[in-house]
């Protein structure tokens, strides 16, 4: 089954619905890389809430996706890693070090919003809904 990819304002959301085979993961990678460009998205959220197992291939692919998306000029957030999965991943040494993770979809969107606000400030735009000062330092 292909993973549905939803466009939500300036983000795309890949909501995984069931356990994925290796081919489906690679398909997801290709779809996301394409859709980020097509929708001119600033951020990508991959929701893995339903997964109760993450093997090393899945983790490696997610990391590859995040790196690719970064090269395409967007930010990736992986959301919904379950406690048991997180624990198992850490024990296997799969810690997704340079990838942003968030508790759930809501948190992931909030993170991307903060990023966008910071980015907007950096280029001198007036950000809608000013955040608490010091939330993110902008160089």
């Amino acid at each position: 089954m292909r993973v549905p990819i939803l466009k939500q304002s300036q983000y795309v959301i890949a909501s995984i619905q069931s356990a994925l085979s290796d081919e489906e993961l690679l398909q997801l990678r290709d779809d996301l890389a394409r859709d980020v460009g097509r929708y001119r998205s600033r951020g990508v959220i991959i929701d893995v809430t339903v997964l109760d197992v993450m093997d090393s291939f899945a983790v490696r692919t997610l990391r590859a996706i995040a790196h690719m998306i970064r090269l395409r000029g967007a930010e990736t957030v992986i959301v919904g890693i379950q406690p048991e999965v997180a624990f198992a991943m850490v024990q296997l040494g799969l810690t997704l070090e340079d990838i942003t993770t968030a508790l759930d979809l809501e948190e992931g969107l909030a993170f991307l919003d903060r990023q966008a606000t910071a980015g907007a400030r950096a280029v001198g735009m007036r950000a809608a809904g000013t955040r608490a000062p010091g939330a993110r330092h902008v160089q």
Partner: protein
Amino acid sequence: MTTDLRSHATEARHSRADGTAALLRELVAHLRKNRTQLREEWARRITESKLLTAMTREEIFAEATSVYDNYVEVLETGSVEALQAYARNLSERIIPRGVETHEVLGIVLLLRDVLARSLFKKYQADFGLLNSVLDAYEPAANRIANTVAVGFVQERERIIRQQQEAIRELSTPVLQVRDRLLILPIIGVIDSLRARQLTEQLLRGIRANRAKVVVVDITGVPSVDATVANHLVQTVDASRLMGANVIVTGLSSEIAQTLVTIGVDLSKINAVGDLQGGIEEAERMLGYAVMMPEPPPAEVKA
């Protein structure tokens, strides 16, 4: 008396089962008759071998009497149930006083020896009879030693299980101090079982409370070695996968030194001096600002 016994024993050889029973009866009568003397001999041997040093002479003698009577009863009835109950009861009383397994086993074996010696003495004139008496005595005596030792070890294991249970239940609470801020105060030694449990509890807490920041306070952890440090790093990593930042507080200077000496990679750990500092840092990360209200009015003195 001896001739009487001997004829008794000769008869007994005809039917082996009957014979054993008869010999045991005879044995029991002998042990009853010499109760005082054998008991004293046994208590003396216990003291001599420096067993049960945690107990006073009187206590040893009192327990020795009970064990002796139970022992004779088992020989008489062949049923170890009463002895089992007594062994459990005895273990319950003496384990908290620090009596070791080898001591309990030692005294039971001593009693076996003392009684065997007395049998040797009694039947030394008739080697054949002695042989059949020992045939009857030894299996029973071994069974008794076995029962007491097993009872003691079981009791010990029960206590250990109970204590482990207690430690597990004492284990660490995950507390919410502000919206999206959890603290995890760890107290006591961390082994891998507990570390695993801690991490799982924390991860569940992160999800249940939708936490963004977790302060792990290890002020109460007496020592940190490579294993514990690794557990900490794992907890930090796993929490991050769930989207929460971890701040570790309460690393004492000794612990910091140890960690640097053994070369644990703590680059991923965000450490703050004490719990207060950790909570302040967490509040800052969450965008809380704690402010004093208006300065309190100067106290009016009557």
